[in-house]
């Protein structure tokens, strides 16, 4: 029995090690290639935007979800960021949910799709903000130098 238990413990230990080692492989390798294409039409933009809203603002109030979408579109119009939605979304380390592949992990809800549509139709609860973050999570220190405009749900939005 002792040997059997030792076997079982070893199997569990090796499995845990294997999973943690596997997590070091960049998530982008696990994503189908067609998902990484830049959007070519309105519905591609809705799909991309609602996925990032899903990844960044799941569980947030509906207005907060629209606000997150609006921030991304404000970035497209700003000289400080890439000039396409795909460029903004896929900017390195810009959004945690893109970096860790969460945006492709499930289908966005009706609320998240609607939030993306409203943002693309010009609704902006943030009055032009370019940044948002959750104060309870670790962020880069420089972001706190931004002028905070509004807090919606768990996110603060800033210029």
């Amino acid at each position, binding site marked *: 029995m002792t*040997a*059997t238990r*030792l*076997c079982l413990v*070893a*199997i569990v230990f*090796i499995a845990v*090690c*294997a999973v943690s*080692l*596997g997590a*070091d*492989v*960049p998530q982008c*390798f696990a994503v189908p290639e067609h998902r990484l294409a830049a959007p070519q039409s*309105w519905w591609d933009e*809705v799909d991309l935007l609602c996925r990032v809203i899903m990844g960044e603002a799941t569980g947030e*109030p*509906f*207005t907060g979800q*629209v606000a997150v979408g609006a921030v991304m579109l404000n970035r497209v*119009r*700003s*000289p*400080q*960021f*890439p*000039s396409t939605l795909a*460029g903004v979304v*896929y*900017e*390195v*380390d*810009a959004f945690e949910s893109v970096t860790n592949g969460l945006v492709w992990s499930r289908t966005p809800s009706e*609320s998240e*799709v*609607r939030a993306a*549509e*409203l943002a693309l*139709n*010009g*609704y*902006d*609860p*943030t*009055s*032009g*903000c*370019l940044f948002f973050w959750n104060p309870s999570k670790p962020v*880069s220190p*420089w972001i706190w130098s931004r002028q*905070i*405009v*509004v*807090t*919606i749900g768990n996110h603060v939005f800033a210029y």
Partner: protein
Amino acid sequence: MKWNLGRIAAAVLGLITVLALVFGANQYRQAETAQLAITGMQQRAMFSLISHVENMEGCLAKVRAASTPGQQTTFLTATWSHAQAAAENLGQFSMAVTDLTAVRQFVSRIGDYSLVLSQKVARGDQVTQAEWDELRRLEDSTKDLAGVLSDMGRSALASGSRIGKASLTGLFLGASRTDNWLNQGFSEIDTMAQSIPSPLYDGPFSEPNQAALTLARPGAPVDMETAKSIAGSFIGTGEAFQSVRLEDSEGAIPCFLVTHKRADGTEATSAVAKQGGAVVWHTDSFRKTLMRPSAVLTLAQNFEGARQAARNFLSSKGFQSMAETGWRRPGADSGRIIFAFAPETTVGQGNTAEVCRLYPDLVKVEVSEGDGRVMSFDQKGYLTSNDHPTRALRAPLISEREARETLKDDLRVQGQGRLCVIPMLPTREVMAWEFNCKEGEDTYLIYVNAMNGHEEAIFQVLESEEGSLTT
């Protein structure tokens, strides 16, 4: 050999250990490959960035030497193109550690300024000496930027042999993805970029046009309780909410965000302007299976019903002379439609009086097709533009017929031209004649300046079952 339990367990353990080692080695190789790929992408972006910035410097220098408008336009446009590419390459570097926004803004504004000047030259307008001096200043700044980037490039080459090796320690403890030579270099550039004054011009990326717009007519201040009351009556459904929450928004239009929450978790949020108490925007996440309260408008369950519901809603909120400018149904089965409206006014007097549509003063209403219930509302454009103190609407100097004659002969004009005001930039609008034209199977909206006859804007109209888009 007698196989007892101990030997079997040892054999199994040994097998598992070998498999784990093989798996681990495979994972290490994959991690190393991925790390090399990422580093390769960054280095490619780095050297592309250097190349494009050096090309920007070169093109700006050539503009100074160019004597014909054609050559000036060529090099100014090339500067813009290289600036766009440089800004895109900056997006390949991680924002997690270094703030690259000042650098990208600096590069984008040089390109934007060059493009504005090239358009000016192409129109035959005179570029002032002050504008040429500004361009020279930007050329010097670009030269400085190119110098710092070259130094970073040399550092990149020097450290290249050590980058991309995934260490065993890093594998178990978590490898860091930051590269010191990158962060240090961009920190220096960030400091340099922030110290360079932005060029003074009128373009999409210029400072005045990047600032958010304020209310055209602010009005008297309102307090929190008044804002709560305004939001409650704006919803107008008469339903009971579980709670009401207020938040402060200190953007260009300071607002109270009043959120009414229902028992099922859905919320209706209204942004009430602190000056004047207007509802700037409103969203409602109600679920369409809810019973419709009696206070909500009752209308037919079709498109025309939704359209009429939107019109009735605007009328009930005091909007006058609103013309529908377009609609979109987000998805064939969404059951809701977003309508856009713009006010119309009269310019000129007597025989020369013309109805003029004010596109910057846009109002949007989203309506549920099933019951005509308003799901969202946005009048930010209306509040920041309508009756603005700097707006002066004069009678057009160019007639509709004269404006039509400036259009390309191949175009088939549908109906009559419409007088309108269109936003060229957030801080600039022009009065123009709008023509709906067809060329082949394609539909265009062409805007001819009603004061000088110049072609100001062209949009292609894309029609579908979900409405129309202009690009």
